[in-house]
């Protein structure tokens, strides 16, 4: 081997060594590897920026290959730097996307809350409306009831008026008189046998008219009072007057008048309406009076 040969070989070896120094470790590459590993184990980056993470991982592979291929340190450093920055790209991208998801979630939350609040308001309004409607319905019902009562009252008044008018007409036929004690119908002596308590047929007809008064006004009460003239003993007169009153009551009962609406009293000669000294006066004193007690409804009868 000549000296010239040796020099040539040595120069070649030195040049190759300069081009591809292979040190034990490259700090930039170690750092890049650590960052890629950290990003890979970060769920946010792995989930939200998978493509960016993939590019960083690929970049690391290229840097490692350059290092194991014995490329220049500057090249390995450059590739490591690129890897580190690609990890940064992945991390920032994931961070942005996570924040955007939070923003969207918060917006959705707000919408949900607004909707819930509006639903609440609508339900409240609905409840108030329903309550108000119920109130109105109740007021309507009360009004209707009041109207019905008014109609009923009016009807009752009209019925009462009609009844009173009818009663008055019926009583007029019987020569009824309004007195302080009430309406008084007088049955004269001529309706009875002389000295007897039996009603004559004409008296029976009058009984039918009286009974009609009770039928048109079932609540009407009446007292039947017998009177005589002063002829004979007062004892016998009282007895006769009682019997005649009883006879009238019996006749009314036969006509269908309720017994509990009637009462009888024999006054004898105690209450004359005319002079017992004349024949006509005595005849007027012999009588049976049917006294209708005043009623509440009578007040409104003019």
């Amino acid at each position, binding site marked *: *081997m*000549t000296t*010239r*040969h040796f020099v*040539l*070989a040595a*120069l*070649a070896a030195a*040049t*190759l060594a300069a*081009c591809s120094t292979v040190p034990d470790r490259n700090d930039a590459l170690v750092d890049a590897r650590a960052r890629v590993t950290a990003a890979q184990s970060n769920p946010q980056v792995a989930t939200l920026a998978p493509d960016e993470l993939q590019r960083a991982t690929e970049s690391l592979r290229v840097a490692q290959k350059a290092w194991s291929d014995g490329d220049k340190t*500057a*090249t390995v450093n*450059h590739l490591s*730097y*690129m890897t580190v*920055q*690609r990890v*940064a*790209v992945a991390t*920032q*991208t994931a*961070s*942005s*996307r996570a*924040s*955007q998801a*939070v*923003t969207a979630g*918060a*917006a959705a*939350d*707000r919408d949900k*809350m*607004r909707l*819930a*609040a509006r639903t*609440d308001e609508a339900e409240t309004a609905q409840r108030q409306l329903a309550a108000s409607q119920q109130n109105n319905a109740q007021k309507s019902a009360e009004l209707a009831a009041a109207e019905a009562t008014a109609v009923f009252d009016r009807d009752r008044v009209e019925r009462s008026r009609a009844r009173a008018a009818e009663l008055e007409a019926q009583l007029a036929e019987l020569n009824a008189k309004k007195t302080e004690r009430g309406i008084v119908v007088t049955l004269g002596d001529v309706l009875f046998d002389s000295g007897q308590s039996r009603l004559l047929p004409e008296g029976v007809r009058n009984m039918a008219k009286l009974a009609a008064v009770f039928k048109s006004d079932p609540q009407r009460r009446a007292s039947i009072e017998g009177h005589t003239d002063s002829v004979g003993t007062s004892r016998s007169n009282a007895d006769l007057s009682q019997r005649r009153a009883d006879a009238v009551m019996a006749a009314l009962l036969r006509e269908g008048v309720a017994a509990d609406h009637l009462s009888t009293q024999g006054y004898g000669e105690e209450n004359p309406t005319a002079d017992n000294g004349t024949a006509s006066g005595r005849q007027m004193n012999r009588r049976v009076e049917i006294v209708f007690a005043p009623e509440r409804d009578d007040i409104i009868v003019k």
Partner: protein
Amino acid sequence: MHTPPFIRTPIAVLALALASTLVVALGGCASTPVPSTQMAVAEAAVQSANTGSTSADAPRELQLAMDKLAMARQAVSSKDFERAAQLADEAQIDAQVAELHAQSTRSRKAAQESQDAARVLREEITRKTVR
């Protein structure tokens, strides 16, 4: 055919082979073309990242990208094309990182504001309901 005397030995053949490898290796180290594409991409990336919001939210990152681009231009001027290509690549990724950094900062603020708004609304609704 006349052959030079030193090539006639096997050692001479080996030496010639070594010398050829050396030429090829040196050529490999120095034959990087002008990285015009990488330079263009880097220029565009830095320009795109150089906005008001990026300089507000990621000023250091943006400055790094701009410095890197300046260094790449300088390397081109001094015919160090390999270094220029690397610097251009780095300027491009630095610009991207600056932009994304600013964007994630903005997104984080927006998320915070959105959550605050939701909290305020919730409080308002709660107060209304209680009333």
